[in-house]
């Protein structure tokens, strides 16, 4: 078969149409790339071409409630060079070195680096505005002036864990710095340039200058004065008792404002990198959860009074234990408190009395009050890293769990939860939301941009019930276990707490968290103060909240109220002088007695002291501890014997 011209012509047409169709397809493909994909590709291409030189905004300050500056950012000019854009590196290095006071070789090395940006800084020293101006005047292409900020802390370590820390890029990492980072940081600016693939500047492209804007100031509810009292007390307690940890909070119960918050161990925010991470990562006051112990009895008491389950004048008999579901739960006082009123039950922090209140309430009611007081859920404080605490699930609560919960065991709570719960008693029954920020303030004008208003979470108990609970708590301080918190003229009401610490499901022997939560003045509390000391090692006292924690809260309240100018009052309950709270006895003088006399005297003292004899002879010539010292019930006194009766 011969190929005809006709066949060839038909094939020419086919080829022509085929090839033109293929070209048309490419045009369609180009339309897709250059119209549909164009915005996306353009964005990516710009990201490829642009080089951003960061400009930092000045971070806002953090102030106390009276405007005292707790931290601010000091900025200094910095010289930035884009090595690829500096053409004559030798000449540039020589000029820059003389202005900046740096070795020429060092500048030359920096300019020779294969990096997008290098910072030209003479050692750690900041450069002056005049130097920055001189660098600007040199007009070297590829050299720019930016600002770099550093946090400064005029009060040193004060309130470090509330303030928190910032990282090298000026970003908030913990505390207020993190919580209010977006307010404080302002907006980053930049100088945007277009670069060639080899890093040199693209010719005929301008630079886009986006100025940085400064951040706003955050004004805290903290009061530097009160914060200082609190930190002083923690320092002293640490020196005296060498505890593992300590936490203190002072709150204004009417508003939920936190006036002071401090922990031990803490850190120095200006060089936080030198401290263990848990010191700057954790704020114990809101993070740590532990068994509250007796301070929790405030909740049981409030519930029982609100529900009308008890009259404080009712009598109660404490044989030294309370039998629950076949178990005998002992009172902390061996032998019990005997017959007492329920007011005495509160004053004495008598466990059987509170177990009875718990039983009268029943588990549903007691646990509903516990939740209403804010336990088991976050308080919503404006700080990062808050703990929840743990409560029994209602279906797991048997008689035993109900009993222990009633006096503060088997629940796990945070310090801030306790403060807010007692704050509700203090302010007449309203659970407030705690906050540490009072206002956002414009950094330049000092104008208040936004204020944080007090937030009521819910009403927990009535005003009358709250007043009754306060009276009982005042009585605890005036006549009961909290007597060491007594402040003459300021009506302190409060409750002690001594909790054992469970580890691996067992209570650790000798490890206690002692606490005290107090408020004053009791008739119209201005402040609630709380302290907890974890694992104190006292030299000469037993580990009880009333002994260690109560006096600290007493001093914090006394100093703070005086500082705030709250007048003293004579309306309060008088202090009843006794060692009621703790089974402490005074050691009598045995020196000069015969051994028999001494033994008799030891029993007669009413204290259950045992004696131990050292040496030989008819007379006691020395004793340890010395006469007049207070020792716990049942302590041993060593008697040293000799042949010569000592004088006097």
């Amino acid at each position, binding site marked *: *078969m*011969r*190929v005809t*011209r006709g*066949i*060839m*012509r038909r*094939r*020419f*047409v*086919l*080829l*022509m149409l085929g*090839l*033109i169709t*293929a*070209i*048309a397809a*490419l*045009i369609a*493909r*180009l*339309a897709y*790339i*250059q*119209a549909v*994909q*164009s915005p*996306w*590709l*353009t964005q*990516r*291409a*710009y990201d*490829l*071409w642009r080089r951003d030189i960061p400009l930092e905004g000045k971070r806002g300050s953090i102030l106390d409630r009276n405007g005292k500056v707790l931290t601010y950012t000091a900025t200094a000019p910095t010289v930035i060079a884009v090595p690829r854009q500096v053409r004559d590196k030798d000449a540039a290095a020589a000029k820059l070195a003389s202005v900046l006071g740096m070795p020429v070789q060092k500048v030359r090395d920096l300019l020779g680096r294969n990096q997008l940006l290098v910072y030209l800084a003479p050692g750690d020293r900041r450069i002056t505005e005049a130097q920055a101006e001189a660098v600007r005047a040199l007009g070297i292409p590829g050299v720019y002036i930016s600002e770099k900020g550093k946090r400064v802390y005029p009060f040193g370590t004060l309130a470090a864990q509330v303030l928190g820390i910032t990282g090298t890029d000026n970003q908030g990492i913990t505390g207020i710095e993190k919580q209010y980072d977006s307010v404080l940081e302002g907006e980053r600016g930049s100088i945007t340039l*277009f670069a*060639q*693939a*080899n890093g040199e500047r*693209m010719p005929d492209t301008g630079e886009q200058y986006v100025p940085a804007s400064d951040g706003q100031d955050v004004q805290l509810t903290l009061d530097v004065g009160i914060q200082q009292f609190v930190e002083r007390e923690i320092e002293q307690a640490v020196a005296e008792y060498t505890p593992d940890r300590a936490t203190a909070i002072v709150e204004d119960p009417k508003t939920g404002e936190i006036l002071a918050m401090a922990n031990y161990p803490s850190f120095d925010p200006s060089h936080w990198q030198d401290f263990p991470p848990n010191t700057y990562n954790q704020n114990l006051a809101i993070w740590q959860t532990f068994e509250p112990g007796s301070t929790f009895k405030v909740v049981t008491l409030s519930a029982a009074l609100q529900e009308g389950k008890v009259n404080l004048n009712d009598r109660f008999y404490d044989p030294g234990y309370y039998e629950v579901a076949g178990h005998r739960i002992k009172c902390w006082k061996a032998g019990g408190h005997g017959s007492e009123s329920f007011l005495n039950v509160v004053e004495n922090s008598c466990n059987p009395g509170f177990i009875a209140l718990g039983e009268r309430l029943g588990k549903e009611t007691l646990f509903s009050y516990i939740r209403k007081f804010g336990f088991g859920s976050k308080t919503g404080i404006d700080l990062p890293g808050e703990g929840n605490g743990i409560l029994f699930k209602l279906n797991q609560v048997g008689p035993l769990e109900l009993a222990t919960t009633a006096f503060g065991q088997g629940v796990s709570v945070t310090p801030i939860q306790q403060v807010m719960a007692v704050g509700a008693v203090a302010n007449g029954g309203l659970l407030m939301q705690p906050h540490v920020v009072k206002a956002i303030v414009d950094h330049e004008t000092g104008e208040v941009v936004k204020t944080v208003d007090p937030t009521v979470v819910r009403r927990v108990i009535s005003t009358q019930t709250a007043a009754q609970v306060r009276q009982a708590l005042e009585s605890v301080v005036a006549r009961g276990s909290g007597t060491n918190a007594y402040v003459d003229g300021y009506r302190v009401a409060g409750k002690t707490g001594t909790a054992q610490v469970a580890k691996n499901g067992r209570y650790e022997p000798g490890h206690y968290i002692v606490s005290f939560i107090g408020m004053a003045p009791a008739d119209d509390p201005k402040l609630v103060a709380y302290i907890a000391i974890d694992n104190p090692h006292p030299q000469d006292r037993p580990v009880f909240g009333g002994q260690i924690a109560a006096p600290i809260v007493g001093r914090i309240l006394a100093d703070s109220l005086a500082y705030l100018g709250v007048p003293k009052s004579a309306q309060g309950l008088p202090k009843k002088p006794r060692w009621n709270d703790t089974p402490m006895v005074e050691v009598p003088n045995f020196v000069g007695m015969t051994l028999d006399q001494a033994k008799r005297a030891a029993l007669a003292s009413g204290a259950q002291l045992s004696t131990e004899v050292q040496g030989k002879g008819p007379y006691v010539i020395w004793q340890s501890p010395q006469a007049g010292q207070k020792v716990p019930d049942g302590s041993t006194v060593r008697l040293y014997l000799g042949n010569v009766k000592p004088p006097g």
Partner: protein
Amino acid sequence: MQRAWEKFDIVIVAVTLVLLGMGLVMVHSASSVISAQKFHDPYFYAKRQLLWAGLGLGSMFTLANIDYHRLRRYAPHIAVLSFLFLAVVLIPGVGQIRGGSRAWLGIGTFGIQPSEFAKLGLILFLSHYLADARGRMHSLLRGFLPPLLLALIAVGLIMLEPDLGQSVVIMGTTVILLFAAGARVAHLAGLAGLGLLGFAGLVAAAPYRINRILAFLDPWQDPLGNGYQVIQSLYALGSGGLVGLGLGNSHQKYLYLPEPQTDFVFAILGEELGFLGCAAALSLFAVLVWRGFRTAMFAPDDFGALLASGITGMIAVQVLINVGVVTGSIPATGITLPFISFGGSSLTLMLTGVGILLNISRQSAYRVA
């Protein structure tokens, strides 16, 4: 035998000149940065391209005035010479390596690419052969295979350089010529099947090849390796948008896009002149394809018809491959864009081809009303 020749096909002349003009402008714009960088002379490539354009235009008008039948007499000689050069360029020390291929003969920066001349030489010879083979085209052994074998030998030599782009163009042009000459569709289908089998064999032998070949589908999988050029090319086209950034305003030519003046000049064209510029250039090529096959159809004899379709086919195949690569539509294959890319051999040979085409058009057997 000499009839009065018609005038030039003025459309072909106009389209060629416009494309050539666009090319000169774009080569200058695209190469200015790299020229300044490499040679401290922003006009380095532009000046040379201008020289080649002059040479090419001279060649074009010369050949437009030489009766193409006279070329047929020398077709075997030209073919032999082409193959000789393809072999000589492979000798180390004689052929120069540029861009990884031993493909250049010459001194210094001026060099010629034997493969460019071989393309035209092969088209000339195959047209000559096939014009006489109309009675044998149904035969596999006597009609179809001999020209195919000749093309495969050329491809084999070029693949030793190696230069995949030129090989693909030669195969594409050969297939177009065979089809135009009336080869049986079954033979062509068989060839396609063999090609696929060979491809499958290569992939089976080294499975990593499939990744490299398919990299064009998603260049962002390997943005700094196989995908780099395509991504940079797409950035250029995409940021050009509909109307472009304006002549001379490309960003991608600032060393982001490699070889902006040769294989990827169309990307810079798309960045500076936008979709409108791209569509205009491609439309001009489409017009050229139309006029080229029109010339083939009205050619006074089979040799002229095949020669015209071969030259037009070569131009079209190069346009399709080049723009296909630049738009990320086909796997990366290096080939110049006719009349526009920088390159002496390519440009002069393309213009020479157009000259031949013009001469064929002047001898149209039919007047078209």
